[in-house]
């Protein structure tokens, strides 16, 4: 206990080191804010790109979200992680872009899916043990992007927030203005749809079905 010097920043937990940066940024230090953003810019950009499916929109989202975050930093109280707070701003910006670009009904996040039938499972086949031996990192990246792009926005967005950005169900519900139940049912559909698409690519060749490996 007596050896601990909480004022030495190297000894701080990452979370407190981050709060120090936030405090400095709140006092107007742009460099501190730049450092904060530098940690997350690639993830925010990727998320914006996955939601909007457009490079230009994604860059706009990244900029607007960061500027807004800087402007409203005082309202960040630190109950959530900075990244979650930034993500929330960026998701809202992304959804606005999406709505602006395609003003058709498919963009609605409030679409009533509860009346749709049960999630469908068609492909039942085990995967290759090592798809990374058959595909390069870049090919896998493209396969994953293509699969995500093919989902409807309501499924895509929930999956990205929950399984790619690793927000909790509650955080995802809050960011998207959905009920917890809606987030859960959309996530299940999204996961199963992606599973379906990836199985077509990654399934073990030569084996028709069912490696009952247990």
């Amino acid at each position: 206990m007596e050896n601990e010097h909480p004022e030495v920043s190297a000894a701080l937990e990452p979370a407190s080191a981050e709060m120090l940066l936030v405090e400095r940024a709140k006092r107007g230090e742009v460099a501190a804010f730049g450092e904060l953003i530098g940690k997350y810019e690639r993830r925010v950009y990727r998320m914006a790109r996955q939601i909007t499916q457009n490079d230009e929109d994604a860059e706009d989202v990244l900029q607007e979200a960061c500027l807004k975050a800087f402007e409203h930093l005082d309202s960040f109280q630190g109950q959530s992680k900075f990244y979650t707070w930034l993500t929330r701003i960026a998701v809202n910006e992304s959804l606005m872009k999406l709505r602006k670009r395609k003003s058709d009904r498919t963009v609605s996040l409030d679409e009533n899916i509860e009346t749709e039938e049960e999630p469908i499972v068609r492909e039942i086949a085990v995967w290759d043990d090592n798809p990374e031996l058959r595909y390069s990192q870049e090919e896998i990246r493209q396969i994953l992007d293509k699969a995500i792009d093919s989902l409807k926005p309501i499924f895509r967005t929930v999956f990205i927030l929950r399984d790619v950005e690793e927000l909790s169900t509650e955080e995802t519900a809050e960011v998207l203005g959905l009920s917890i139940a809606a987030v859960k049912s959309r996530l299940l559909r999204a996961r199963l749809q992606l599973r379906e698409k990836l199985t077509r690519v990654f399934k073990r060749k030569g084996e028709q079905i069912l490696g009952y490996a247990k």
Partner: protein
Amino acid sequence: MVTCKDFLRELNDFLDETTDPVLRAELEKHINECPNCWVICDTTRKTIQVYKGMEAQALPDPIHQRLMNALAKKAGPGKGGSGCCGGDAH
């Protein structure tokens, strides 16, 4: 008795490990006896893992630069215009 339909409905919570222990034991029993559900569960888990494991690529330099420029401009000479403590407070 857990049916395949039940299993599918509980799949998310099962994978996220948020099911209560009693239900979890029943679901585990089901996949040990039902090859189809075992494969669905296994490939869904792998689907999630492969996405989680994919790191975001570095931001292209020009995009990073434009972002930093926009921030600098925002915080620039006009900074403190609406706030309390101006740039020369210290």
